[in-house]
């Protein structure tokens, strides 16, 4: 298959996302309009009267019909204008841009944690199916997915910070005494490394550990299960028998042959896991005072700040689309068959 075909496939996938994104915009728009609470009242402040509220309602365009409002919203979107958040007073795009790195840094670290625990567990379980190792893995990961993240988070804070004092205070991305490193990627750990400031790096990492573990524990199960299942299936397939019959070493059979093939379904799961994490992020960020977009969304939702909620969901959708695109690209890199049977 030539690269042209792959580009075509990728372009196709991107385009296919357009109707979904549009669907998301519509659903979000309607959902957010259904939120109780009148933003005009919020905007008008504590001592406003009916007249000033009406004034503000007009200035926000809230007196127009829903279809009109939707068209205006779409028009703004096309210009990259997500509107101004009612609760923070900042343009939503700016707000998201500021908070996104925090969420991503946390989510990615959680993902790394999850992957580096779940995949070896899954492989270990698959190479000895039904052994005690397998059963133990199953118990561990099932327990992990059964823990409500907010519960895990709270107790981890209680134990590791409050009782044992080994974890830093759950104060967000960086402890009070440190100032954030010069922003390049806005991932504090990476920025600190780029600046060569190891103290800040360790401090930022230390803040990340508890929330990342909390978040990652929850997604161990789907990953480990998928790894185990995929490995079992691949290990029982004909070509593994061929590889063994050709005298290839155990490690070649296990990694070059079995694992690479098992990676395909794992990769697909990874997309789902990531989406899961973005959802759970909301709760974890709340527990750990993490200044990410999840906590921003909760705040916005609670105060009916629908401009912000819309923006948030849209950002999420785009993130999701990008993620799936990345996975598609990785998939085409690993699997030469992509596109023929798709």
């Amino acid at each position, binding site marked *: 298959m030539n690269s042209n075909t792959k580009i075509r496939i990728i372009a196709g996938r991107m385009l296919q996302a357009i109707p979904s994104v549009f669907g998301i915009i519509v659903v979000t728009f309607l959902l957010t309009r259904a939120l109780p609470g009148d933003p005009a009242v919020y905007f008008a402040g504590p001592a406003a009267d009916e007249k000033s509220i009406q004034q503000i309602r007009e200035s926000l365009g809230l007196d127009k019909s829903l279809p009109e409002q939707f068209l205006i919203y779409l028009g703004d979107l096309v210009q990259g204008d997500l509107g101004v958040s009612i609760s923070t007073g900042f343009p939503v795009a700016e707000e998201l841009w500021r908070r996104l790195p925090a969420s991503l840094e946390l989510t990615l670290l959680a993902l790394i944690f999850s992957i580096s625990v779940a995949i070896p567990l899954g492989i270990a379980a698959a190479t000895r199916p039904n052994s005690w190792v397998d059963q133990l893995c199953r118990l561990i990961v099932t327990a992990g997915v059964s823990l409500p993240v907010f519960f895990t988070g709270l107790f981890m804070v209680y134990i590791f910070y409050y009782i044992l004092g080994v974890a830093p*205070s759950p*104060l967000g991305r960086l402890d*009070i005494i440190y100032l954030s490193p010069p922003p390049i990627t806005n991932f504090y750990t990476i920025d600190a490394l780029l600046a060569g400031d190891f103290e800040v790096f360790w401090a930022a990492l230390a803040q990340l550990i508890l929330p990342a573990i909390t978040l990652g524990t929850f997604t161990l199960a789907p990953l480990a299960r998928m790894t185990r299942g995929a490995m079992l299936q691949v290990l029982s397939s004909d070509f593994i028998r061929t590889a063994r019959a050709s005298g290839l070493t155990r490690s070649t059979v296990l990694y070059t042959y079995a694992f690479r093939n098992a990676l395909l379904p794992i990769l697909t799961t990874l997309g789902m896991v990531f989406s899961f994490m973005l959802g759970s992020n909301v709760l974890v960020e*709340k527990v750990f005072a993490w200044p990410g977009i999840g906590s921003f969304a909760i705040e916005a939702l609670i105060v009916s700040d629908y401009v912000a909620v819309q923006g948030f969901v849209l950002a999420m959708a785009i993130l999701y689309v990008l993620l799936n695109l990345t996975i598609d690209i990785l998939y085409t890199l690993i699997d030469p068959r992509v596109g023929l049977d798709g």
Partner: protein
Amino acid sequence: MRRRDFIKTMGVAAGASALPFLKFLPAEAAGRGDTLVVVTGNGPNSMDIQRKGTNRPSYQIAVNLYDRLVGYGTKTLEDGTMMYDYQKLEPELAESWEVAADGMSIMFKIRDGATFWDGTPITAADVKWSFDRAVSLGGFPTVQMKAGSLEKPEQFEAVDDKTFVIKLLRKSKLTLPDLGVPVPIIFNSKVAKANATAEDPWATEFLHRTPAGGGAYMLERWDPGQQTVYTRYDDWKNGDLPGVKRVIIREIPSASTRRALLERGDADVSLDLPPKDFAELKESGKFTINAAPIENSMIAIGLNLNFEPFKKKEVRQALAYAMPYDQIFKQAAFERGIPMWGGKSFTPTTIEWPQPFPYDTDYDKAKALLKEAGYADGFEVPLSFNLGLAQWSEPMCLLVQESLAKIGVKATIDKIPGANWRTAALVEKKLPMHVKAFGGWLNYPDYYSFWVYQKGRLFNSMNYHNPEVEKITDETLHLEVDHPDYEPNIKKLLAIFFDEVPLIPVYQPFLDVATQKSVTGYEYYFHRQLDCRSFKKATA
């Protein structure tokens, strides 16, 4: 500022020797003498109090980063808590002021040598621009200015650089005190104008992000939703130089984390804790709990007169007799307040406000009243509370629910998310029975009545309407306290409130602030925000 620079500024106290410990002992941060670490549930959403949609925590920006013409004095309560004294106005930017002989204008003398952060002197023109802005922007600042009868730009005149005159529309006891609230702050008008545009003549976009003033503190950084950091403005002339060089205000959504941070010594000041935590922290004796009863404020149950049974006074009184006051006070409020029940008589003897209403838990009386009103079998009613205040209002509602069941009234509990609360309770006024926690800034019963008992007012969530109340309130609102009509009027009002009980008060809450023992100088203000200027911190 980079971290290293910051370490330098820490000076000799911590010293370079502290450096190796930093990564292991973040707890030390709170131990340093010149930095105050405050943890709070909610942070500012704007640097400009006069902007539309500015939230309550943003008031602290106005308090700490900006000056007003006048400030309030300080008094000390019995338990040692310091509190502003609304009867004593003190000079802030205005060195002195004079009320004209006819009482229809006030002339302020601007302090000599007062400068903005950028070093330019503060002039009367700045004051005029700032006041013009406050009355022109509309919304909250304008309404608040109006409360002090400050309504249009023509009232303000910059006579010369150092002289500023306010012309009054009417004589009002509220005018001068209204200059001390967080709204009429003085902006650096040159900077502001330089950043104004044709569509935005008052530079709202600029001032929203960038404070431009000359207050005791300057903004070091603001990460919305995370933290606000102040540094002292060392050339501040409008009062005693603050005792703390640097203030870090961190936003921690979880109340128990805020408590933990205080207990672990990582925070100096912890705000917004549930009453139970304050009760326990006080009990432990390890921390200072500054508790001031919130002025002009009551935790109460509001009864909406649009709801059929509540149209009858007897029903309202019956409910007032069926409230489990003591239980609420102990189990929901953890006694962090002053009881507002069990008053002696339906005829008020003082004009003290708030004061206990003449009700107590008495189910027999309640049942009798219900019977009289024709509701012997009770009725069903939703009981709503603001989810944002669930920590104490949820148990309170549960107790009320249980208690009302004893007189046959079946209450169903309805949680309403924070923002919807305003709409449902205050704008649409559609909640039949709800928890009310209003407090007026200016500490007068007539001011309370104006907002809560007058028809059509935002905070009259009870839809209460009584022509007599309207009349008396309007008459009294601008009367001086020593006016001969004042006391009788207020007593008349209170008698009506007692008898009609559209609002059943339970207790007057405390504003609790927990600090480390080493921190002193906390002062309560009606705006309930920290005024960091008075803090002092003992060096470890």
